[in-house]
């Protein structure tokens, strides 16, 4: 027999590896944390990898999970072996088809990386709330708790469904299992074939619909028959548990890994038992072993087959000695007697006559909340006393409101003998996680070594902090929780010492590796005092390297990953040094070999130079530093931010009690300004003499960190030294000063402002009115300047012209978001808040814009001095147009009622009533006047003392027009939300739709959408997209009554501002398609504006406005805001990796698709040019 083949992979790959091999059709749609399964399947298909029977599976990306479910349903009906992957909201969208698939007794297995359902908030993390919503569909449900199990039980599920005809939902915990790297034993093709082959497949094929043997399914049944027919399938469910056990036994016989429907681990005469499923069972398993060794009679019952729930097997697995039982559910069902698993267990015990057992039910681990040994111990402790204190409890949080939470002794820390545990802090951009994944693979290559890697990312897309948790050992690693105590801690970014407690997890006597941009002799004194104290108190051995210098000297730029990886191996002793260096080099060769020898050589040079640059640092007996860690938020932050936001930013959010939170997910706005991130190494510096005051820099700044203000000259009196100010260049304003100011601690340093600055020194055009300079030396003064700048009065909205320049004199009400550095979407969102922010409602589709718009800890939407600002909400991904329409309907209803009440009260209100009703609100001045009327109205209403006046008081503010904007990305507008978008456009209602078009699913990691252009490489379009982008503008123009604009703010900013104003003023539906550069395009986003210009000039992205109002005067409604394309799309495409990847990997296909792209651009222009000449007859009165 061949020795088993090992591999280091994550839970997603473990499951997908089986699913792909066992399938012929895969219909998929990206959703975190399951996206990787679909991406892998697509990549495997693209490289021609066959399934178990030598056929190449069909992999198709659908427009939504609902679509994917429909497609697999069809494939199954036509006799194919099909699968799909999903999670969370995606799984909910599949439920209707799941009922059908199960009702038709269809052999099918889907794989779910279980994730939290959005309730009071969205969460991408793991729990069982999604799969629990499927327990009534008729699907069998099989739970895996580890990466190996995700692989093994995937095979069991695929085998059992073919044998039983009952469809399977195989699931494992999102992130904790789906993203954990572990070494597993792979299931060979031969074994999978053995498990799957046989009558099951043949029978499945024979049930397939074919005109050669016609059958009919999907009838409509009536009261006379439906019920009986529904009961006809019962026997299949009765037989299923035995079938699953049989498949498990078959796998066990071949691999030695035995599984039971309910696996019991613990003392054979256990008195206290915990029942749960998923990864939490592994942590519990670990604790049980520890407690049993200490003589305690405890055990854990791992539920694997949850549906159908076999009472018989459950009772058989439970020790007869059990006296108390805690059932843990990783979900919440508000209002139920208990959570689902609890209810099943109670019912099973009742049915089995085991009522004597005391049962409690607990919730744990929602949204990937840690579930670690102290929490498990707390659950066992709670079972200790004969009658448990609480029937229902929570564990892992502090509930100081309903007092359900169990007390946890966080200090209880069972040893992990024989393990090396390491924690690494780094930035996303420095390659720390990649290096650690690589180290795990290197160590995992040793047949005797077990490995585990888990990675935590913060919620920001720019300058995000990553924490890597690694374990190495000889025994199986069941620790499904973060490393609590590490023998090795590394901090790859020196500034993190000032913001995060990086030594929190350092074990006494451990090693602390620090990347410090200083000579070894200076390192100690540069540390913050708190860090020095920790090092001393925990007797840490400190080592430092200037990895940045080694990287620069080796020509690697700022990528320090291989250097820090070499240090890890050198210091941790997990491998002999020479072997480690050879292994790292081999890995470099593998990773970069395809990229050319030069990059390999540079990495080799860096690895060789590393050890010479690594120095032990002598630790003095006590702290010497006067520097301290920085508070997470600024001192002026309000109470909520100080109490709650601050703790979250400091990584102590887990400690916040229930009482700290709003009950319904409502969150205060304007909190991002208190988080001073200081991530820019360089910030823009303004030369007021060269500046032409065009404000393009402020317009295109993705983070609202460079701002312009005009204010009375006299205000300068209190300016701090060095504050720059100059006369405002305007004929309409006298004695007015102008200042351009950067927020030094909020800027991300993307450099877009400098790039777009058109003001050049005529004698030395390289010198612009803005230039980037190092942040640190400028910080003290710049901080004061920013503070003074904020204190200056804002421009009067009514006195500013709403054009490119004027709009930027208005305060942005969207600032310092967590978007990527150089983000191409956020300038549009910011502009929206400047133009209409004080009367703006935003419905935001899930995606990048909902994440940087509303991903805690901080919130970027904010208010103006009067306290007005955008009201923002995210419902779902698929329903955003409808969600926004609902807001419009509510507003229209409010306005109608308010106007009726004003009319009713007119005799009391006098002339003001008519003025309120007739008010023109087409300009900022007119709106201000109406606001004043409403203020006066409010003052008068109490005196009227009538029910009508009281009702009008509630609604009066709606007499000032509000602006509804429906914002989302192309994945929403072109794909999953298109049906709703189409309907809302057809509704004719006054809504404005802003599509931030990055031409790809950005938030989930670059999957193609129908907005992806010809020739672009994306996930699910590995060989380059062969079909053109959907022309949403023309679809909307075809409706005739929709205002449509296609804009690119970096190419023609004035056209963008104009389109926003026209769309807002248009009394019907408006659609703006906004071209948005994105990191998924693969180039330095500082060139985003230039790429937009090229996209426009090459005809790839024509600028247009279609205004149905122009029909009234006989003008053509379509206006093209550009000349005929004058460059080739090849110029635009050649600058972006998304196109160049194809050019380099498949030149012939690239050439063909490039020609196609050129043809499309020419055709698009030809059609638009003709349409722009079409005018409609003016209706005669």
């Amino acid at each position, binding site marked *: 027999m061949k020795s088993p083949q090992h591999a280091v992979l994550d839970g997603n790959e473990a499951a997908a590896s089986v699913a792909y091999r066992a399938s012929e059709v895969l219909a998929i749609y990206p959703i*975190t*944390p399951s996206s*990787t399964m679909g*991406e892998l399947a*697509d*990549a495997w298909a*693209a490289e021609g990898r066959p399934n178990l029977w030598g056929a190449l599976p069909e992999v198709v990306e659908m427009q939504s999970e609902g679509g994917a479910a429909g497609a697999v349903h069809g494939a199954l009906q036509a006799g194919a072996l099909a699968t799909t992957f999903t999670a969370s909201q995606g799984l909910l969208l599949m439920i209707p088809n799941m009922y059908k698939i199960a009702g038709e007794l269809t052999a099918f297995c889907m794989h779910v990386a279980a994730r939290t359902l959005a309730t009071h908030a969205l969460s*991408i993390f793991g729990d069982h709330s999604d799969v629990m919503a499927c327990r009534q569909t008729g699907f069998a449900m099989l739970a895996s708790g580890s990466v190996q199990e995700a692989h093994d039980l995937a095979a069991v599920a695929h085998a059992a469904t073919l044998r039983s005809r009952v469809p399977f939902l195989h699931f494992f915990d999102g*992130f904790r299992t789906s993203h954990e790297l572990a070494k597993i034993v792979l299931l060979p093709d031969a074994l999978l074939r053995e498990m799957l082959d046989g009558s099951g497949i043949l029978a499945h094929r024979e049930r397939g619909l074919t005109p050669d043997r016609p059958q009919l399914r999907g009838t409509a049944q009536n009261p006379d028959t439906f019920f009986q027919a529904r009961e006809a399938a019962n026997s299949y469910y009765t037989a299923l548990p035995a079938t699953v056990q049989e498949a498990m036994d078959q796998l066990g016989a071949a691999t030695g890994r035995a599984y039971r429907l309910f696996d019991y681990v613990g003392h054979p005469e256990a008195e206290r038992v915990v029942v749960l499923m998923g990864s939490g069972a592994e942590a519990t398993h670990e604790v049980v072993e520890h407690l049993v060794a200490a003589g305690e009679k405890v055990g854990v019952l791992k539920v694997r087959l949850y549906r159908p729930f076999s009472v018989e097997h459950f009772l058989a697995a439970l020790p007869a000695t059990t006296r108390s039982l805690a059932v843990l559910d990783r979900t919440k069902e508000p209002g139920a007697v208990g959570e689902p698993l609890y209810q099943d267990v109670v019912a099973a015990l009742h049915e089995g006559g085991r009522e004597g057992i005391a049962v409690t039910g607990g919730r744990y681990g929602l949204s990937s909340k840690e579930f670690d040994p102290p929490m498990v111990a707390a659950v066992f402790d709670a079972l200790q006393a004969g009658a448990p204190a609480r029937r229902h409890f929570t564990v892992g949080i502090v509930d100081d409101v309903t007092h359900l939470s169990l007390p946890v002794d966080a200090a209880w820390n069972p040893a992990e003998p024989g393990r090396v545990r390491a924690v690494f802090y780094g*930035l*996303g*951009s420095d*390659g*720390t996680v*990649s290096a650690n*994944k690589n180290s795990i693979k290197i160590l995992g290559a040793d047949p005797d070594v077990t490995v585990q890697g888990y990675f*935590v*990312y913060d919620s*920001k*897309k720019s300058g*995000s902090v*990553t924490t890597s948790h690694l374990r190495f050992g000889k025994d199986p690693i069941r620790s499904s929780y973060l490393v609590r105590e590490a023998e090795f801690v590394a901090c790859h970014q020196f500034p993190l010492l000032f913001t995060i407690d990086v030594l929190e997890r350092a074990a006494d006597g451990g090693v602390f590796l620090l990347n410090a941009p200083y000579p070894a002799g200076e390192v100690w004194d540069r540390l913050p005092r708190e860090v020095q104290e920790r090092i001393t108190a925990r007797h840490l051995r400190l080592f430092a390297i200037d990895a940045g210098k080694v990287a620069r000297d080796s020509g690697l*730029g700022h*990528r320090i990953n291989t250097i820090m990886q070499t240090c890890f191996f050198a210091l941790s002793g997990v491998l002999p040094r020479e072997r480690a260096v050879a292994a790292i080099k081999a890995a470099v060769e*593998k*990773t*970069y070999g*395809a*990229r*050319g020898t*030069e*990059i390999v050589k*540079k990495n080799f040079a860096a690895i060789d130079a590393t050890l010479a640059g690594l120095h032990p640092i002598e630790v003095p007996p006590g702290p010497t530093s006067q520097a301290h860690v920085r508070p997470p938020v600024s001192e002026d932050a309000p109470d909520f931010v100080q109490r709650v936001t601050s703790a979250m930013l400091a990584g102590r959010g887990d400690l916040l009690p229930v009482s700290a939170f709003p009950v319904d997910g409502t969150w205060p706005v304007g909190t991002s300004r208190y988080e001073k991130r200081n991530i820019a190494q360089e910030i823009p510096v303004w030369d007021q003499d060269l500046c032409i005051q065009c404000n393009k820099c402020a317009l295109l700044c993705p983070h609202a960190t460079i701002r312009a203000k005009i204010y009375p000259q006299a205000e300068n009196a209190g300016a701090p030294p060095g504050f720059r100010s100059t006369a405002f260049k305007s004929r309409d304003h006298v004695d007015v000063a102008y200042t351009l100011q950067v927020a030094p601690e909020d800027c991300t340093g993307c450099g877009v402002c400098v790039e777009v600055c*058109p003001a050049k020194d*005529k004698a030395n*055009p390289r010198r612009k009115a803005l230039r980037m300079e190092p942040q640190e030396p400028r910080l003290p003064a710049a901080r004061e300047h920013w503070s003074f700048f904020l204190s200056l009065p804002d421009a009067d909205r009514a006195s500013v012209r709403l054009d490119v320049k004027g709009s930027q004199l208005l305060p942005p009400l969207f600032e310092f978001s967590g978007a*990527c550095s150089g983000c191409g979407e956020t300038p549009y969102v910011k502009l929206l808040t400047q133009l209409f922010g004080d009367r703006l409602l935003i419905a935001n589709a899930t995606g990048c814009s909902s*994440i940087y718009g509303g991903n805690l800890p901080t919130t970027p939407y904010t208010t103006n001095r009067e306290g007005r600002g955008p009201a923002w909400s995210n419902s779902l991904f698929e329903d955003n147009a409808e969600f926004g329409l609902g807001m419009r309907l509510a507003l229209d209803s409010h306005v109608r009622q308010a106007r009726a009440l004003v009319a009713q009260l007119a005799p009391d209100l006098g002339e003001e009533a008519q003025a309120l009703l007739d008010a023109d609100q087409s300009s900022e001045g007119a709106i201000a006047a109406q606001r004043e009327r409403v203020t006066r109205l409010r003052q008068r209403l109490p005196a009227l003392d009538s029910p009508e006046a009281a009702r009008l008081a509630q609604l009066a503010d709606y007499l000032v027009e509000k602006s509804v904007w429906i914002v989302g990305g192309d994945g929403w507008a072109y794909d999953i939300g298109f049906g709703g978008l189409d309907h809302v456009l057809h509704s004719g209602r006054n809504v404005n739709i802003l599509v931030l078009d990055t031409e790809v699913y*950005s*938030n*989930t*990691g*670059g999957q193609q959408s129908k907005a992806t252009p010809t020739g672009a*490489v994306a*996930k699910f379009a*590995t060989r380059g997209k062969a079909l053109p982008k959907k022309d949403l503008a023309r679809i909307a123009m075809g409706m005739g009554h929709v205002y449509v604009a296609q804009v690119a703010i970096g190419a023609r900013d004035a056209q963008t501002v104009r389109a926003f104003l026209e769309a807002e003023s248009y009394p019907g539906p408006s659609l703006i398609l906004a071209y948005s550069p994105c*990191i*998924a395009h*693969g*180039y*330095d986003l500082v060139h985003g504006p230039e790429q937009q210009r090229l996209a426009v000039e090459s005809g790839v992205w024509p600028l247009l406005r279609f205004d149905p109002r122009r029909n009234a005067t006989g003008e053509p409604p379509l206006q093209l805001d550009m000349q005929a394309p004058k460059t080739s799309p090849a110029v635009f495409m050649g600058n972006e*990796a*998304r196109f*160049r*990847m194809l050019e*380099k*990997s498949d*030149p*012939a296909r690239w*050439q063909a698709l490039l020609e196609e792209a050129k043809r499309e651009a020419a055709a698009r222009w030809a059609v638009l040019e003709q349409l722009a000449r079409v005018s409609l007859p003016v209706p005669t009165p």
Partner: protein
Amino acid sequence: MDLRTTYLGLELPHPLMPGASPLPDLLDRARRLEDAGAAAIVLRSLFEEQIVQDDLSAGLHVEGPMESYAEALSYFPSPESFALGPFEYLEHLRRLRAAISVPLIASLNGTTLGGWLEYAQFLQDAGADALELNVYRLPVSDQEDGMEVERETVEMVRAVKHTVRVPVAVKLSPFYTSLPAFAARLSGAGADGFVLFNRFLQPDIDVEELRAVPQMELSHPEELRLRLRWLAILSGSYPGRLAASGGIHDSRGVIKALMAGAAAVQVVSALLIRGIDYLTVLRQELESWLTEHEYTSLRQMQGSMNLAGCPNPGAYERAHYMRILQSRHGE
């Protein structure tokens, strides 16, 4: 008519070939070039920057954002499955080699003595019958001494010749203090021939935006004169080792280049303007002209008008320059 020629030791049926350009980037077009009768095919240049810099940066933009954000651990299909490096050039060369029977001349473009030179061997191994080493060097610093610039180029040639056995031609610019002396040193270092000349990128200036605009225009027929002069001067010393490149737009130009001493004539702009089949026309016209003018073979014409053979060699030299200027002055 016997149109045979020898260039870099390659026995060719005639001297016409497409010069370094994107023309053979596609297999299909390369086949059409062969069908049009190309005596050899020169591939587009593989740049030092492509080998060294560009691929680092391409990798960075794909890898840079990876592993930063929980929902999107990457933004592209696995970058490891894409050869972002210069390997596709080698791969393309291999495919061409398998499909095309005429000699293939690969082109390397760079300026420094560095690791990229090892690609010369890769190109040879991938099936190149000869190499063109394009030394496009643009000194912008007052620290770049002329002697040093030339020395480095000579060393580059020596390094390449050290690693490959196929012939290597050096594609030069016309701007050297003494081209004959420099050519002699390059020849001493092993250069098998010279391509006269490469064409410089000549940026334009956008006076509104105050920025330089990089531009590459197709060649003009007038550019041939410079080539003719230096072909005439050098060809006596390097028979069978010179190619004319730049400014050849018709058969007259071909004839002139051959008379000045070119062993091979490279055409690019004319093919881009008039299509690949124009190569056939050029060969036919060349043949007709030779027949009409009662030449017995192409070799009879080759170098006939060079510095050694020309009845009035002074026209290539300084004395003639003086006379022309003075005669114009006298008009």
